[in-house]
């Protein structure tokens, strides 16, 4: 029974990693851009929510909803005025720019909020749990996983049911031919990064409520997100959820064997998947 409990806790933890990864997966899927500042943008989102909660006394969930349009605008502008200029056949310039952005964000957050670790207070919710079939499940992990499911389903609906989603996929296939359809690739990229930042805000909400954060923890979130995307297969949204779950389960199982093994077990799971399935579990047919 203890093992069932461990694995279920791992699956729920995987929801958090899937939330970290979904925005990264979306942006990579559409424009082959790896945003190395993704983790720092999540931390930035967490500080923005914390600021709103502290200043206005709003509930964290309302504060996150308020933060979303700002984060969308930030992503849209970031893509339009900075990242679109460095996108091209060479993959190095966007990597360098986002790496630089990561450093800038960490230092700006350090300057603005100090190195003290913070937490978004969620009240009784953070310790609430419910009993299901003899297992104690935390409400917060359940909500995290539920949110991850909603995000992945929502993104899939957007991709496969809407005109904007068709434009996303067409631009991802071939930007030049897409422009012959009246699509402006630069505008599509800006919208995609804006949407990714909305998901980042959701990830930031749960990151901030579930654990302490400080300006330096972004890169480690990026690693988890990146591993989840790679395990799932580049460009596959359901794969990203599966990737997050695999890392989550590996971490809780590792921790159950020996608490020191938690982080290492997650990374080992990533390496094993990479050895067995170098293209990830659900690679897209076309790259």
């Amino acid at each position: 029974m203890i093992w069932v409990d461990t694995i279920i806790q791992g699956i729920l933890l995987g929801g958090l990693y899937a939330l970290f990864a979904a925005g990264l997966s979306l942006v990579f899927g559409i424009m082959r851009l790896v945003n190395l500042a993704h983790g720092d943008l999540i931390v930035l989102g967490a500080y923005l929510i914390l600021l709103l909660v502290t200043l206005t006394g709003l509930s964290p969930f309302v504060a996150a909803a308020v933060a979303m349009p700002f984060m969308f605008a930030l992503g849209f502008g970031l893509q339009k005025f900075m990242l679109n200029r460095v996108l091209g056949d060479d993959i190095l310039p966007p990597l360098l720019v986002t790496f630089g952005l990561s450093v800038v964000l960490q230092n700006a957050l350090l300057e603005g909020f100090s190195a003290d670790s913070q937490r978004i207070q969620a009240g009784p919710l953070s310790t609430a749990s419910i009993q299901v079939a003899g297992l104690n499940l935390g409400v917060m992990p359940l909500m995290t996983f539920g949110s991850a499911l909603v995000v992945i389903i929502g993104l899939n609906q957007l991709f496969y049911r809407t005109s904007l989603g068709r434009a996303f996929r067409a631009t991802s296939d071939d930007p030049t031919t897409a422009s012959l359809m009246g699509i402006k690739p630069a505008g599509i990229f800006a919208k995609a990064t804006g949407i990714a930042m909305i998901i980042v805000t959701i990830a930031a909400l749960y990151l901030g409520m579930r654990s302490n954060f400080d300006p330096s923890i972004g890169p480690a979130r990026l690693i988890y997100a990146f591993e989840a995307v790679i395990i799932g297969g580049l460009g596959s949204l359901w794969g990203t959820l599966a990737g997050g779950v695999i890392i989550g389960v590996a971490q809780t199982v590792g921790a159950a064997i020996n608490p020191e093994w938690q982080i290492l077990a997650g990374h080992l799971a990533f390496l094993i998947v990479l050895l067995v399935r170098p293209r990830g579990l659900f690679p897209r047919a076309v790259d």
Partner: protein
Amino acid sequence: MTALLETRDLTARYGDFQALFGVDLTLGEGETVAIIGANGAGKTTLMRSLSGVLRNGPDSIRFDGRGIGDLPADEVMAMGIAMVPEGRKLFPSLSVEENLQIGAYGRNTGGYWSLDTVYDLFPVLKERRSNPGTALSGGQQQMVAIGRALMSNPRVLLCDEISLGLAPVIIKDIYKAVPKIRASGASMIVVEQDIGQAMAVADRVYCMMEGRITLSGSPDALSREAIHNAYFGAAA
């Protein structure tokens, strides 16, 4: 006849390589013009310039009295110039129907062409509507590419080498659609290496060689010898 689309002294280059040398071309409202020429004559470069994929001086290309040479492809398309690109270029991530739908993304003016009328034009596409575009045969893919361009109800339809790599019987099938496309009111520029089909549907023919227009006129008025000379250069 007033010009709907015209180029004046159009030049185009890729870096140091000049591909077009002062091309003057006119397309009238409702007209179908064929551009023929050998490989490397500059036909595709001309089409890429007309569609906005290659940018030029604003007045080197005029559409409906307005200089559009410097506009990007998406704005050119929104004005009503749709292109069937060489090699079809279907989107592999999209189904047949989605490939058609996306043709109307940047211009949705209403008009004769819609999913229903495109399926009437090419009934086989209706059966394959849920397949990925790239799972179809070459001829069917070409039908999707043409239907995709029609979905925006263009005023000008640019067709770049639609017979490329297709069997003669399939080419004939595809060219059967041309009269219906003309009847819908679209003017057409048809680029071909295969002279026969292009001459049969065109009101006027331009022949290109080495980036210049070497001959133009109505298909009946041009002798085979004149075309041969304009196509390959005068016999030595």
